């Protein structure tokens, strides 16, 4: 296989994840990534793009996003406006067709990476509306009677936070990978990828505290990888002694963001 994903210097992927990426590329199927927030789902696409040297298109899904938005939009209002003032090119509909991220990815000359981020944010039916396009990698523009077809199939990465159940028909077409929360060993690797030099004792103490907070039942929003990294940065800048971490929980607000969670941690500490 010419396309083999090995992670990058700042993105540490588990062997299973790397295999999943390879399989998705080889079988030309979308890769669906699920996992807790902060497990690096979105970063995966960036890492693949970097590792394989391919351009990345990101389609961020919001609750109001429609499947059509990713393909193309026809700016009728602009055309109407232009027509009233007799602007040149008004008779050419193609002038007013704007491709969305999916359309751009299909239209690209080289193979690209397409990230459909947080697909579960959209309406329940949204994934079903994209079945044909993702299967055939083409779509039809009614206004210009033209078909946009991918010259080389883009590598499609889809992320989901499991806010909504995805439809079965959609799932059947995907390769699925669940990113489990990293254990201590993996976490150490991830942290080392982000910091040039980190005091071993500080890291140990910080990890102890971090995983301890994650075990507290009453903490609703458990701190994730990115929060640990921010916290470590704060700790390194302040130069606080590692031994005091567990006792004093400095800069706790960086790790735990909600009032009730902060109280839960302090209560557990006391």
């Amino acid at each position, binding site marked *: 296989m010419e396309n083999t994903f090995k992670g990058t210097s700042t993105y540490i992927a588990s062997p299973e994840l790397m*295999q999943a990426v390879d*399989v998705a590329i*080889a079988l030309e199927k979308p890769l669906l990534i699920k996992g807790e927030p902060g497990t690096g789902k979105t970063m995966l696409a960036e890492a693949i793009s970097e590792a394989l040297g391919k351009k990345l298109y990101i389609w961020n899904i919001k609750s109001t996003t429609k499947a059509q938005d990713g393909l193309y939009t026809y700016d009728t209002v602009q055309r109407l406006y232009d027509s009233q003032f007799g602007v040149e090119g008004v008779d050419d509909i193609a002038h007013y067709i704007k491709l969305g991220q999916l359309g751009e990815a299909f239209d690209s000359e080289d193979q690209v990476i397409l990230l459909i981020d947080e697909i579960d944010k959209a309406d329940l039916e949204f994934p079903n509306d994209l079945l044909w396009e993702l299967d055939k990698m083409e779509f039809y523009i009614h206004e210009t009677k033209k078909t946009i077809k991918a010259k080389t199939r883009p590598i499609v990465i889809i992320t989901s936070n499991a806010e909504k159940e995805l439809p*079965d028909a959609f799932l*059947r077409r995907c390769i699925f990978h669940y990113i489990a929360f990293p254990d201590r060993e993996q976490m150490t690797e991830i942290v080392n990828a982000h910091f040039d030099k980190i005091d071993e004792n500080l890291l140990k103490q910080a990890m102890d505290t971090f995983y301890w907070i994650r075990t507290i039942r009453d903490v609703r929003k458990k701190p994730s990888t990115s929060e640990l990294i921010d916290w470590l940065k704060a700790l390194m800048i302040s130069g606080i002694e590692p031994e005091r971490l567990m006792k004093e929980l400095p800069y706790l607000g960086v790790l735990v963001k909600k009032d009730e969670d902060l109280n839960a941690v302090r209560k557990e500490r006391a």
Partner: protein
Amino acid sequence: MFTDFFYMLKAKGLEVSMTEWLTFLEALDKGLADSSFTKFYYLGRMILVKTESDYDKYDFAFQEYYKGIQSEDKLPDKILEWLHADEERDDYDPNKDLYKFNQKRTASEVKRMFNERLTEQNSEHNGGNFWIGTSGGSAFGHSGRNVGGIRVAGTSGMRSAFAVVGEHKYADFRQDRVLSMRQFQVAFRRLRQYSSRLDVAKTELDIDKTIDSTCNQGGILKLEYDKPRKNTVKLLLLFDCGGTMYPFTALCNTLFQAVNKANHFKDVKTYYFHNCIYSHVYKSAECELGDWIKVDEMMKLTDKDYKVIIVGDAAMAPEELYDKTGNYRGPNEGLSGYEWNVFINNFYKKIIWLNPKYHPGFNTAHWMESEKALAELYHMYPLTVDGLKQGIKYLMAPK
């Protein structure tokens, strides 16, 4: 090739489709498993399994089908050992004596049922009494109130593909609060009534129609309006915060959060009561005396079109319900608890009662008299995802 494995997966309750199976064979054909057993395991999992809560079923099927391959394979015994791990679960339920469901089952019976469930269960189930899940009365799962059941967990130190299988890392995903929350959220989506279907004024600019009409008039602007499409459902939640509700705090919390996250309601009001609704409802879950409003006032703040959801276990002594002085920690104001409930039930058009302990038809015992009376008064449903769905169906049904 491997066709038996396909049927094994089906037998274990995994809904593998033909598309996925063919994809799997194609992947093998392309050599994506690299003749590595571990890679083969992952390859199958990533193509055939589409939710982490099904990883466990895949593991069981894989184990059973390929058990001959590992020479030092002792897994079937291992599984049985895990199924013995009931003693682990006694540590943190202070009220466990209250909820000794089904505890007379023998170990072998429980095991048999566990295997059946594992086969039949095809989604996460939390707060129920049957499937493997959390916070419920089922014999299988976590954080529940069944004493003689199986806690779904497991550890093992085996090697290679079976190491992953044996760890059963994914068994605990059924614990995930987010999952049960999503189930509730999906149910709440049905609680919608769009104003576009009601008889209201056309006040919202309809862009598409405006463009059409304007074009039809040759570019002379013509504005078109439509009825606004907004959810008109207003919700009144009444939560029981009495002592016997303590074991269901997490479950009620999930429901409460699901309502708050749904944010598509026109209005949500929440009040609390202690054991039974009397003349006052409390403004906070602590139910502090004085921090309340009168039921009459609650009715003034809402109107009869509010959909009411009462959440409580309806567990109280008959005198607490029927006696005119039955409220042991507050005023009765001349009416018994039952009369207050009738009063409320008559005011609002649609009310449902969600009961975390409800077993329809099983409330004949003397100490369940109150529950029976309230179940006859209200439309009572168990506080499970299915119960909520049924309840919402009733709430949305035209009178």
